[in-house]
């Protein structure tokens, strides 16, 4: 985990409505939330020295997509858990997992399923 006790999450999605919903879901657990609107902004968060425990990564974003961002982050040695979130199915899933994502959720994200994954990652007491 990042040095702080609070779980630090980076939400990466180009849709402001979706980010708002994820934010509300995750704030229920007392997580600390940062948002990025595309893959490049997400990568820049780490390049500027920020640390995160968890990344929620959309795929279809302008510029750098989620698969590319995931591959780039893993190439930088970033070990944060990455949950890939996409409206697509098998194609995106395979690409994301090959790029280094830890888990995969289909849109729209189900809060219960997200909770199951967070528990599996030991982010919830």
């Amino acid at each position: 985990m990042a040095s702080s006790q609070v779980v630090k999450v980076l939400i990466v999605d180009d849709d402001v409505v979706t980010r708002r919903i994820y934010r509300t879901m995750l704030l229920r657990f007392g997580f600390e939330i940062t948002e990025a609107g595309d893959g490049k902004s997400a990568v820049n968060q780490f390049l500027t020295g920020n640390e995160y425990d968890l990344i929620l990564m959309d795929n279809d974003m302008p510029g750098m997509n989620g698969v590319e961002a995931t591959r780039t982050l893993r190439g930088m040695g970033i070990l944060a858990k990455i949950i890939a979130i996409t409206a697509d199915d098998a194609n995106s899933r395979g690409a994301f997992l090959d790029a280094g994502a830890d888990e995969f959720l289909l849109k729209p994200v189900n809060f219960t399923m997200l909770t199951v994954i967070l528990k599996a990652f030991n982010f919830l007491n």
Partner: protein
Amino acid sequence: MDYVHLRRQAASLRKGLFDQGYLDEQFYQLEDLQDDASPNFVEEVVTLFFRDSARLMANIDQALDKCVKDFNKLDVYMQQLKGSCTSIGASRMKTDCSAFRECCRDENIEGCMRSFQKIKREHSVLRQKLESYFQLLRQAGPVECATRPNK
């Protein structure tokens, strides 16, 4: 004021939105996320959706107005709009967004125009209905008001 009647009207309007296919089960999830810490969450997200979707639709309008149609750009805008619709459970709009994207893939500009007009109509109807719904909820007040005895 008859709070019970207002609540019944709001419930009826809400049921109609699901029965007529304007909303799907994703909207339930938004309602489940509303709590004491975020008491107006659903209305806030819906307001955000209509503000952002209006922006996206203006971008699409501009792109459709251009002499040379950029179907890739149109598809990107519509993919964003579809994502927003999915997130709040705007089911009919989501379907229409998919139809538009199919037309983009076929480079069928007339199909795109027709689909987009439909999306605009659905957007307008959904906004009116949801605004009425939230207005009724605001007038009805919290549930306790409905059971407060008359003075």
